[in-house]
């Protein structure tokens, strides 16, 4: 299986104008650009909302890790609505509950706690990505 075929898609919620949405997007950028650039791809939720064919085809072809900033879980719902498979849904609030010292504040620019929370979310996603990729590489899944 080629690296491209092994790709895991990361789909953050939009959450424009909301702190937890910003954490969600920052985490997605960190995973796809810094932590696991070779094995992940980023899909903008807005493309799925607009029914973009390329984005829909991508989520139908690859497992997705969604990141949601609130219980509406727009990212997870839109991946499912688009015919994709949510391999793991991450809720920023759940990560914050486990890391209370990382209180996020700010919207356009996160405070230090928010940046660290985004990093914690990104680390959790990277671990999920590693599991998914190793699963797909296992002989049973070849």
């Amino acid at each position: 299986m080629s690296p491209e075929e092994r790709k895991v898609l990361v789909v953050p919620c939009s959450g424009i104008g909301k702190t937890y949405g910003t954490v969600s997007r920052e985490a997605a950028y960190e995973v796809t650009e810094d932590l696991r650039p070779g094995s992940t791809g980023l899909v903008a939720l807005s493309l799925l909302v607009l029914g973009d064919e390329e984005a829909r085809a991508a989520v139908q072809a690859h497992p997705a890790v969604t990141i949601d900033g609130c219980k509406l879980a727009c990212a997870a719902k839109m991946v499912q609505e688009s015919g994709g498979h949510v391999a793991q849904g991450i809720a920023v609030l759940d990560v914050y509950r486990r890391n209370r010292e990382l209180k996020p504040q700010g919207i356009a620019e996160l405070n230090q706690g928010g940046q660290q929370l985004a990093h914690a979310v990104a680390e959790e996603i990277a671990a999920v990505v590693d599991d998914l990729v190793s699963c797909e590489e296992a002989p049973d899944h070849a």
Partner: protein
Amino acid sequence: MPDYLETTVDKFIFRVATDRLYTAEGAWALADGDRVRVGMTDFLQQLNGDVAFAEVKPEGTAVATGDEVATIETIKANVEVPSPVGGTVVEANPALAMSPEAINQDPYGEGWLAVLEASDWPKDRDTLLDPGAYFELMKGQAEEEAQKL
């Protein structure tokens, strides 16, 4: 299960349980003799969003009417919930430490905050709103919030 008054404002549905009394700020009080269970209303929890942490005054704490009985940290704000009744906290909801989301999921049931031994319940009761009065007040508050969206 209590009965509810219900209204829809914009895309949101708000409920008011008919078996208890309310403050204008969105706290409720459900009395059983002099023991009064308190919590936050459906409107107040929806207004403030998903709860991250709930800190309720511990058992044995004396609380005056209107004093903070709990601080709720949500994704939007820190909410200090004023007690609708004065007295001593005899029970703080232990489930909220592990499952603060109960406040969002079931604000009139599993998401209760505390039980107080009231110092003068008849006096406090007279200052609270009945469900119909709170319902009308809450509808106005909800419509005001909807206009900000």
